[in-house]
């Protein structure tokens, strides 16, 4: 009983290994005293709204600083210029293709990396032989900085979609693999033993006991992987591409278009946040179901 509770608590405290939520979609760590439910901050919709305060203040500050011409327009264009840059790109029909291709690359790479991470994490987490054989190698590969893969990938796959998606998949693979692998080591041995005592083994045992037990770990791994996927996307697109938000960054830098550069950064922030929020919602539901 106590071990079970301990495990539950362990899972609960380790699962939201994600940045703190300001929008209230993820699992809130700062759980409040039930007696305080009438506090203003705990009312529905208040917390997400409050999360917009600081960005709005920053926007105003940016506008003021730009209007005061503290920096040159090349160093810091005013918000309006960034907005106009967006409109310009939309009119040329470029913005959607930049966004579209980047999102496509991230989702593909994330999906492939996450699936492989789960397969390897499960196999290495469950089989001692596979663990002994492969874990040292994967540990070493994990230590390779992302950019180090780029020349090799370009050499092997040319500057096409394959090399970029592969790089992103590499980035997404490791967080999923690592958290699942570690999660499986910490599944309550009492439950596993109970499963075995009732004749469960192999995949049936995995499906019934171990997999549900690591659902929280899988989701924290997925969220880390998604963040990593956006990171690797920019790495891939900065170096070799003719489209995408990373390309927009380098291209704008080369042409002195700071407005577009800032636009690209804002888009990356917004897209990253949206995808993370969606995954956070899925995580919340999964954790409610599986713990």
């Amino acid at each position: 009983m106590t071990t079970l509770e301990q495990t539950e608590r362990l899972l609960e405290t380790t699962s939201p290994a994600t940045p703190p939520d300001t929008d209230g979609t993820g699992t809130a760590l700062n759980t409040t005293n039930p007696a305080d439910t009438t506090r203003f901050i705990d009312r529905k919709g208040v917390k997400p709204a409050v999360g917009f305060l600081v960005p709005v203040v920053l926007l105003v500050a940016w506008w003021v600083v730009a209007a005061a011409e503290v920096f040159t327009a090349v160093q810091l264009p005013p918000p309006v210029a960034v907005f106009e840059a967006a409109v310009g790109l939309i009119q040329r029909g470029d913005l959607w293709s930049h966004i579209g291709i980047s999102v496509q690359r991230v989702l593909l790479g994330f999906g492939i990396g996450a699936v492989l991470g789960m397969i390897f994490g499960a196999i290495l987490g469950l089989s001692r032989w596979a663990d002994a054989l492969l874990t040292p190698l994967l540990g070493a590969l994990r230590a390779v900085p992302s950019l180090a893969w780029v020349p090799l990938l370009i050499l092997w796959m040319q500057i096409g979609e394959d090399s970029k998606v592969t790089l992103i998949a590499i980035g997404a693979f490791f967080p999923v693999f690592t958290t699942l692998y570690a999660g499986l080591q910490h599944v309550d041995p009492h439950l596993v033993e109970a499963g075995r005592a009732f004749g469960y083994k192999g995949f049936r045992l995995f499906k019934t006991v171990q997999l549900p037990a690591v659902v929280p770990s899988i989701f924290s791994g997925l969220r880390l992987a998604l963040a990593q996927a956006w990171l690797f996307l920019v790495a891939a697109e900065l170096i070799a591409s003719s489209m995408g938000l990373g390309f927009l960054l380098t291209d704008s830098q080369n042409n002195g278009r700071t407005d577009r550069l800032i636009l690209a950064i804002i888009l990356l922030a917004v897209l990253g946040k949206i995808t993370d929020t969606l995954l956070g919602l899925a995580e919340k539901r999964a954790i409610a179901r599986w713990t």
Partner: protein
Amino acid sequence: MTHANTSAVVCRNVGRAFGTNGTSRQILTNIDLEIAAGEIISIIGASGSGKSTLLRALGGLDVGFTGEVLIDGTAVAAYDPRCAIGFQEPRLLPWATVTDNVAIGLPEGTPKSTATARVAELLDLVGLAEAADHRPREISGGMAQRASLARAMARDPEILLLDEPFGALDALTRIKMQQLLLDVHAQTGTTTVMVTHDVDEALLLSDRIVLLDASPHTEGATIANIFTPPAPRPRASHDPALVVLREALLAGLGVEPLASSKG
């Protein structure tokens, strides 16, 4: 070893030591026990004497023992499919409903319709029909223990191993569950080995009571005595023969006869 003698379970010179790098502690030593098919055996002994350890050896949950454990003449296998165990802790899957937890105990390949009916029947027997769709965290400790009992019974095993199955139950539920165990046993005749702390429970339920205590000769616990309650079941706890046995049992557990008769 001839097959199908009167013994369903045989322990021959069973011992168990636990230890890590060099330091080894003998827990069980020299356990010799023959359990006939259909018997109800209680194992009783002080906390830490090795009751759970013995039960785990019988069920093949622990195969690190020395000596022999035979079930119907063949050595016990790891997680022997002929046994079902109710653990000392309920060990329910926290994400699964009570129904699904009990269904874990069903033999593999039970057809769906049979499974549903059987689980519902068991939940009804242990008084959990109302809690069928609850999660373990939504039920009390005693309810969890009954779910664990139902899960073990769902297996319909040859040998039922129960580690303090009624320990967390209130007095009334305990009596009901003891009666349930006897009813089910009357129907199925399943060999049952049960660990208990409760002397009266042992006296009312079992055919024989095995007392574990420190071996006088070596380190570790062994069978200090085996008591056989005289009357057939159902028994009345005030039966004079039981009263005498109770005192002997309590003395064996190191309790003065003057103390409360509750174990």
